[in-house]
């Protein structure tokens, strides 16, 4: 649980930062079969990879530092 909490916070803050930088682009749409209307875009935009890599590197650095302290 102690490990998951930082991950959850990291994901939340990272996602907020990413979301600020990459607004949803126009997708082709999503619609139920039986409704003929213009649908909102459904697109997971390409992630802001800088944030994801920074998050991964930060977690790795933290784990390594903790391992050294444990030794």
């Amino acid at each position, binding site marked *: 649980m102690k*490990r998951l909490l930082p*991950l959850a916070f*990291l*994901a*939340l803050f*990272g*996602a*907020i930062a*990413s*979301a600020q*930088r*990459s*607004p*949803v*682009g126009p*997708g*082709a*749409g*999503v*619609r*139920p*079969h*039986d409704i003929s209307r213009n*649908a*909102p*875009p*459904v*697109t*997971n*935009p*390409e*992630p*802001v*990879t*800088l*944030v*994801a*890599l*920074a*998050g*991964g*590197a930060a*977690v*790795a*650095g933290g*784990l*390594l530092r903790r*391992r050294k302290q444990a030794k």
Partner: protein
Amino acid sequence: MRSAPATGGLELALLVALTAPLLVEWYETTSASSRLSYALLVPVLALGLAWRARREARNGTDSAAWAPDGPGRALAALVAGLAGLALVAGGLSGVFTLSLLAVPLIAVALVARRTGRAGLRALAAPLALGFLMVPPPMPLLDRINPFLIEASGWTAVTLLAPFDAGATWVGATLSFRGWELIVAEACSGSGTFLMLGALSAFLAALFRLRPLATALLLGLSLPVTLLVNGLRIASSALVIDRFGAAAGEGLAHELLGQAVVIVGAAALVLAVERTQARMARGAHA
């Protein structure tokens, strides 16, 4: 006759001046694309690893070994020649990534010339990581994208099978419980793939993995990408099915897509760290 530090400083200043236009274009290109922005962090990570290697060499007994030697100079001349070729070939062909390849090559040449074989060996991992600052050429990505789109879609269908056994993926359209999700090409996951590849290379260097384990980890970045990307698509489908079409847009949708990738990267780190710790314990036992 000039002193060695003065000559070294002059040499460095000339190299910076030579590569500055390339670096400016690299910064503008990568910072403008969320898919390639990971490359901005690669030199920072490489420098961090190099700093650790330097500190360990100073604390250890072999710090004196970091000195210029004959083989180092010969290798430096060879790599500097390659860097020059990359600059000329990239300039003539107009392929920016080829020109940019000169930057990490110049770094290798500098290290080889100044620190000799010992320094080159100690700094091999950060120098290798430095090459990942060069984004792959777009024509190559264009060839990989269709495969990633297809494989990501079928991964999403597999993940959604417990909720709808009839879910299908055709082209870029996911059919799920009466919904048709036309998934944008952005979901191909090429950015995630490149980022996870760079992260895997960094982890291998950070945790000092053996070559075989490094190769395995780098190979894993593809299936992990497919899993992460499949999860992004599948989770969007589930959210839309539960909360309606409006849930497929806006900040919450954006947050979900970004968070899945970030958690995927962090989970990969955790898995590598745990595996490496177990292997280290097994080796000591």
